[in-house]
């Protein structure tokens, strides 16, 4: 599910488990990322704010 909602950052391994690409999410993808996190049945996905230094 999450890989379909956010293919820009999430791919699946051979068994269907997500592989996350660790890069930050740009503003235009934020809504998609939120939908992917909300859709996760195991609450395994969270979105963290990156602090600008």
């Amino acid at each position, binding site marked *: 599910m999450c890989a379909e909602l956010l293919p820009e950052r999430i791919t699946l*391994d*051979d*068994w*269907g*488990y997500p*592989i996350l690409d660790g890069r930050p999410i740009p503003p235009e993808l934020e809504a998609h990322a939120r939908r992917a996190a909300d859709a996760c049945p195991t609450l395994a996905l969270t979105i963290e704010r990156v602090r600008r230094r």
Partner: protein
Amino acid sequence: MSVSAPPGTLPRLLTGMTASGPMTLEHHLEIHGALPPFARRRRDSALALVNELERSGLRGRGGAAFPTATKVTAVAAARGRAVVVANGCEGEPVSFKDRLLLERLPHLVIDGALLASHAVDAGEVIIAVDEHATRAARATDKALRERADLARGAPRVRMVTVPSGYVTGQEAAIVNFLNGGPAMPTGAPTPIYLRGVKARPTLMNNVETLAHIALIARHGAAWFRTLGAYGEPGSTLVTLGGAVVQPGVFEIEMGASIASLIDAAGGATEDLRAFLLGGYAGTWVPADFGYQLPLTPEELDRVGASLGAGVVFALPSSACPVTEVAFVARWLSSQSAGQCGPCVHGLHAIATALEQVRTGAGGEGTLARIRRWASMASGRGACAHPDGAARFITSASEVFAAELAEHARRGPCAGCIQRQLLPTPVGPSTARAA
């Protein structure tokens, strides 16, 4: 009573060790002397000890090589009465040094645990021992009863036996177990130095690390540094296995070469093909390259290897590396805690594919698949088990590339029928036991 120890010589930890059983408290005090008395104000002697540890440069001997003083300081600064855990679980099938310390020199470990407890003002000390290490448990129990200094009050010291297994000896698994849960490395959101055993700040040290603390407290950081290299001072225990005259646990100077370790064991019994460094979560290096490698975390890191908890295994040329690697891969898969999909499925797939390669049933592309799956397993579990297994498989696929390709084409070789050299202890995996 104060006993001076000669600088720059070995053995240190293993001084006076005999094969006849645990060293008595009397003998221990004769060799090492009594612990220096604590200051009237606990804070004074706690601070002095942490400073000495800082200057000594001691790093953890459980595998992660984390600076001990930093760890102690973090727990000491955390809010609430702390707990100290001496980790002697040693789930690594080719490591015996922690068991040896508890079996033969338990008072060094207890000294170190009491010092650590003093440094962080702990109310409780727990010595964690593998449930199947019965000799170690018996020796520890006997040693605890010899100590009159424990009867006089805080902290409470007790021994706890922990279920056997590869992942059960991980810090998080032991904390879970001591808190009444299964001995599984479930990722906790808060680090244990803030919230560990009974939700208290918890200091967990490998038993060898504690034994070093026992000697640093007596003889000082400067003495500790008379052995080893600048960045890696002191001595360390190494379990040497495989094709050497006298396999066993050796105390070496940090930075000693593998060649000198092999010499200490009476030399190799035959031509060597490769060394496994750091255990089943470790790295293979070819023998010719490995001989001159200095055994320090920094030097090994440069070649992508690690000493882990101090393991060197010498694989002879007569053995079949494909068989050895395939069997260990199967065992590593069986030791998954079963918590995370990428670990459960990934390690199983790798082990199955390796078995196909071993028997020549894999077909084209199997070796590439193994390498791809290994690279996918890293960093995707709640614990470091898949990362360690991936490291083992990836380095094996590089070092034994020729043998693997040969097996994939032609199947079993002459070395395949030999006795398996790397042990894969039978017993329930943690996944089934839980």
